[in-house]
């Protein structure tokens, strides 16, 4: 795509941010492909390796390689994460690796909003919104859950979390995260 077109790409909230007892930032756009295929389909490992450079993630896990990652979403669905501009090329690679095999790969980068929640108490922000036990949530675990009234998924990322939700509710989720991170509402 030309630079002129790239300039038209906007994240849902224009990189909104909120500083509370944890920092909330809308990040992105981020390249995301939903890959649906059964775990035993020949070529799946090759497809994921070719696109994001990771092995096939185990149940409820996310495998990371630099700015790329592969997450387990369901028994026949994977979330592939990569720089925004790479999805078209990635679809070609997936199609090649899974040629002749039943699968579905679609770009969903724009269907979603992406947030980073940062800080020592980032888990508290999410604990107010999602029925997730952060004490037992693994370092490489990907949780598909809800944030208050909408679907969300998140995983640990450095000193915080990455969270994805649907684009249309980006403003709602930003509101939730800001409310939950309000100074003075720490849980400890």
């Amino acid at each position, binding site marked *: *795509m*030309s630079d*002129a*077109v790239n300039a*038209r*790409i*906007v*994240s*849902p909230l224009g990189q909104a941010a909120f500083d509370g007892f944890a920092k909330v930032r809308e990040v992105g*756009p981020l390249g995301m492909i*939903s890959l*649906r*295929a059964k775990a035993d389909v020949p070529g799946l490992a090759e497809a994921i390796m070719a696109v994001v450079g990771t092995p096939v993630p185990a149940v409820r896990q996310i495998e990371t390689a630099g700015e790329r990652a592969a997450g387990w979403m369901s028994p*026949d669905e994977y979330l592939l994460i990569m720089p925004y501009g790479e999805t078209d090329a990635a679809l070609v690679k997936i199609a090649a690796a899974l040629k002749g095999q*039943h*699968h*579905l790969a*679609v*770009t*969903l*980068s*724009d*269907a*979603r909003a992406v947030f980073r929640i940062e800080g020592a108490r980032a888990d*508290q922000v999410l*604990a*107010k*919104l*999602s*029925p*997730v*036990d952060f*004490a*037992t949530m693994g370092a490489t675990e990907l949780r598909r859950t809800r944030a*208050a*009234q*909408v679907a969300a998924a998140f995983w640990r990322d450095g000193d915080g979390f990455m969270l994805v939700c*649907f*684009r*249309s*509710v*980006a*403003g*709602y989720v930003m*509101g*939730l995260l800001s*409310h*939950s991170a*309000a*100074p*003075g*509402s720490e*849980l400890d």
Partner: protein
Amino acid sequence: MSTRLSKGGRLIDRSASQEFSFNGKKLRGLKGDSLAAALLANDQMLLGRSFKYHRPRGIVAAGPEEPNAIVGLGRDGRFEPNQRVTTTELFDGLEAASQNHWPSLEFDVGVINNSLARFLPGGFYYKTFMWPRAAWKHLFEPIIRRSAGLGKAPTARDADRYEHTYSFCDVLILGGGIAGLQAALVAGASGARVMLLEQAAHWGGRAPVDGDVIEGAPADVWINNAVQTLAALENVTMKLRTMGAGVYDHGYVLAEEKVADTTPGDGRPKKRLWRIRAKQIVTATGAIERPLSFAGNDIPGVMLAGSVREYVVNYAVSPGDRTVVVTNNDDAYRTAIALVQAGLSVPCIIDARSTVTGDLPAKARAMGIRVEAGKAIAKVKGGKRVTGVSLCAQAGQGAVLEEISCDAVAMSGGWSPVVHLWSHCGGKLIWDKTHAHFRPDAARPPTGADGLAMVVPVGNANGMMTAADALVCGAKGGAAAAQAAGFSAEAKAAVADAAPEADMEAVWIMPQGAGDALKAKMWLDYQNDVKVSDVQLAAREGYTSVEHTKRYTTLGMATDQGKLSNINGLAVLADALHEEIPQVGTTTFRPPYAPVTLGALAGESRGDIFQPLRKTPMHAWHEKNHAYFEPVGLWRRPYTFPRPGENHEQAVHREVINTRTNLGLLDASTLGKIVVKGPDAGRFLDMLYTGVMSTLPVGKCRYGLMCNEQGFLSDDGVVARIDEDTWLCHTTSGGADRIHAWMEDWLQCEWWDWQVYTANVTEQLAQVAVVGPNARKVLEKLGGMDVSKETLPFMQWADGTLGGFPARVYRISFSGELSYEVAVPASMGLAFWEALHAAGAEFGAMPYGTEALHIMRAEKGFIMIGDETDGTIIPQDLNLGWAISKKKADYLGKRGQERNYLASPDRWKLAGFETLDGSVIQDGAYIPSAGKNANGQGNTQGRVTSTYHSPTLKKGIAMGLIKGGLDRIGDVVEFTTITGGTVKAKVVDPVFYDKDGEKNNV
């Protein structure tokens, strides 16, 4: 009078004075006071009026069981009605006001009900308001509504914020008294994740007030050590001011934390609702003292003995200078002893038991306190304040033996374990005769997902009424819970000095042979004014079930939910029915244990984040351009874009005319878009749609209908064949998630062996309908792909770029005009929308909203899911038989549609309607027909489904269902109007505009 003592008070800080107000009067209390203690310290005994008789009400208790002393707290955005002064912590600037009186607390006209009490017996409402029927609506209901409820509902928006928090643990302990602390020590030592919640602001519960000695030292010492030990454990979380409100299935518990009650406006959440999932729950919820039922037991100054002791020991507040103690057990002697030790006078302990021999009575006697065994209070004297009591024999009818002057009465009828949380999720109770109370039945606990016990009761809450027993029970319970959660624990308990107590004696009426006059002054439920006489009357009138008696008399139905009245009430009922108490049973214990504020339950869900609002990529543009929005599912879609000086109707008509003559742009991003791919995708879609999708050539579009299994029309939309094994299904805006779930349901549960994958790509794409005679011109001006009639004919699609935007262009029309729907990545949606407006300016481009869309589709006779359908309509009703394949062996809904009722030729079918006078048929109008049905209602033969003023045709147009359908064309029928008349309309073809499709065929 009640006052502050010069010495003592384990919870107060005498160096920190705090100012507060009651009914506008400035008063001073001390840091650490409860509001109740501070009020008593200021001799403010009268705090409110009862609900029915408006009798004076003062503080009775010291905890959440308080029925009387409820006030309105704060003002404006921070006003809270019905707050118990006993559980409210004092803070500087607190404002409290009494409730349920007019014009003033001291002089209340409602008290007239009091003198009419004999005309207001139990069940009064049921008996009085039955007849005449009309009087209910115009007379009784308004009066009852005006007098109903104690507190006033707040009128200002809540100025505070609230939130929820999820939490998980192995062992959740509810209650931080000595039994709860002991359980936490044992469970904490096992390594289990422990959460310990205490509703009050202090650990240790009643033990220090009762003077318990643990490990050879006053209870306070052991409590402080326990708290320090627990605080040092990383696996233990402790929360004060957090009340376990409810226990639910699978170890789910709700608890309410008071975060900023005493610091209003500091920005923190006022309350926090904890949503906890625990493997095991320990209820260490203590016990509540019972009142005794003697005449005048509701007069301010009559209090629970344990509470009197608590005020003296914890807050150095004496409820009176001369306090008579009346009891049926040894525990109340502790109150007498504490009062005398504080330098106050106890003129007499009136003990209903005929022989009094225990250690505590001996100690009281040794201190010189007069003990009257086998005696009772015949009557309390006083109006707004106790002035004395009349002594009588418990065994008699109340003949007065002696008058004793006093200004307070401390009563104790025994203690009832707080079994509420044990009972919420199905725990059963047994009757303990020794203590005359119900306690948890260990053999019938609430069970979890594994069928095993998930709640362990300990301490007083389990009927273990001494400190020594409570600690042993706490240790055992803590160990049992930890073990059940998978840890190994040792039930090692601290040792408390034994303080033997003689047996109590169940006393439900005092004196035993009291006559009607006395019984009519014996209060059971203080807040709702239910007396012994009311329950006995209910029994005489045939209310033998405790649940019925509760509702008939309103016993236990006030804001305190019968915490004091429940056991006494059902004991009186049992006596009246000549049954044993366990046979009568208890009413049902339901969450919450004590009232939880609605703000905490709402949590973050208010204001901007009350509900998720779905916004398209162009939403901000719509807002900037003054769109008037309407809800479509959770989306907000522009209904119209009014210009200055236009009303909505004018704006909609302008948008329709402009679209039909120039160029209209519609944000269609909300339209559902689902990709369906796989070797079996064609076969799958043939089952889902009534038509055939498998034969659709690549590059083409086809309109399709989906039905549910019953045959009723569920959704519609255009399907595009993308490649050999990929289709893209458009759904309605509100139906995208539902239809996607419907597809997955069939694929995962029924046709699991079919090779089909779906993906909901609705939000990946921004979609714009470019509509009108100039539609092609604007796309050609943007340039990049051939959108000519030849290359991109009607019902085809093509990929390409438009003005540099990657685009998929569908040549489809929901308006009858030349129309393209263009999908671009959502992140470019706004830029594309703006580019269309810029390029389209010279062609008269205007945005249009959903109402213009509706009118234009109605002018073309296109149906709308939700208007023409309502869940009872099959496609055949809408003359859509052409979209149903006759060749297919099956599709979802086929069998349903073959049922004789749905296949009947008598079904109402779609037709168009035009009024003879050009007016618009009213929404919801019916077409009456002759005669009446079996219910005496007028017969009908049809109804309107869509009705608009057509700005194109300059008259009213409508679609509707009518018996006979299109066969009725030419008939004139009548539609009802809201005012009762009818309007004549002609049955016509539902395609009002451009029937031959010439506008689109360019």
